[in-house]
């Protein structure tokens, strides 16, 4: 029997090396501010934040798999639950909830009510088109791509724009079958 995947990232988070979130939050804020100065266009900043997140996700998945002991998920529903309850918790210290499934079971929402990225953040009027937390989209997309799932991730709700929570819509575009056998010996 394979090891049962943890239902929560609580224990992993508790045993991980942690740091006062202020450094993280302020660093992210300073990066966003610098990008706004350098790139000028809000759309371009959104794009670059997503790209940075994507690159982070490509690498973070290794740490996730190594620490979480999660084995293969049976379907996308389980994948979404694992991201929300284990993935978010073990890195950011907060869990998300999974809701709004479509009939096919390929689109759902991850809802964050608490989000350390936005502590002390207020958007000025000039940045209304900014998806401040766009790095999170990229991380989810990048990490899932490394486990053979092509996804599209978009913001539905954003507290910085006056909504009551953060809602990320994750849409499974296609699952890329893994190719066996790996040609290790060549």
């Amino acid at each position, binding site marked *: 029997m394979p090891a049962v995947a943890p239902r929560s990232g609580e224990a992993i*988070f508790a045993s*991980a*090396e*942690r*740091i*006062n*979130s*202020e*450094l*993280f939050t*302020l*660093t*992210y*804020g*300073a*990066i966003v*501010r*610098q990008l706004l100065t*350098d790139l000028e266009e809000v759309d371009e900043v959104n794009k*670059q934040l997503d*790209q*940075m997140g994507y*690159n*982070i996700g490509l*690498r*973070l998945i290794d*740490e996730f798999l190594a620490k979480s002991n999660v084995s293969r998920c049976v379907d996308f529903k389980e994948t979404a639950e694992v991201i929300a309850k284990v993935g978010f918790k*073990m*890195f*950011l*210290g907060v869990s998300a909830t999974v809701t709004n499934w479509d009939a096919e079971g390929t689109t759902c929402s991850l809802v964050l009510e608490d989000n*350390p990225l936005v*502590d002390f953040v207020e958007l000025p009027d000039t940045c209304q088109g900014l998806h401040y937390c766009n*790095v999170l989209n990229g991380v989810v997309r990048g990490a899932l791509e490394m486990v053979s799932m092509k996804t599209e991730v978009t913001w539905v709700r954003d507290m910085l724009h006056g909504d009551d929570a953060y809602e990320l819509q994750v849409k499974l575009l296609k699952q890329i079958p893994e190719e066996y056998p790996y040609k290790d010996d060549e």
Partner: protein
Amino acid sequence: MVREVAESCVDSLLIEMVSSYADRFYATKPDLAARRIEAIGYQVGHQLSERGRLGCTDTVTDTRTGLGILGELGQWIMGYTMERPRFSDHLEAIKFICKDFWSEIFKKQIDNLKTNHRGTFVLQDNRFRWLSHISIDSSPESPGVSQDGSEATVENKAAQAASMHLYFPCGIIRGALTNLGIPCAVSADISNLPACKCLF
């Protein structure tokens, strides 16, 4: 309670920030990339010291500790606006950076502090946290055989790549000190990874 995140969040963000600036936005202009990365650090250092909440990780059990530190930091800043004797204040501020500030960010104190008593301070960290995770892609052929020139280039490249990661912490220190009333220039020297010296 003080909110925490996994340390790998900060590590990943910094690695990606440095590579975005150094390899993508300003790939052909390392000077500009360095200046931008330093500017990001400056903002963080400035805000960290401004918030005055440094060193408060242990306030969960004892709120008085937190207040004490808050008060202390407040005094730092007030002291400067009241123009205390310059020299002793500089040293005190540097000590604050070496102990409280450094521990808060890097979970250890500075290993060695030197000064020429003319305004230059050298802070040495023998195991600098943000460099200890970095591996450098240098593929040394057998060092005994390779020509002196090529070996030097490989080492040079390695140092250059590592130094890109130092502009951020230099910026943090400059931001914090500037906010404490000490305008300064901060530079870093790595002769022996992952040790790091900061000069200012």
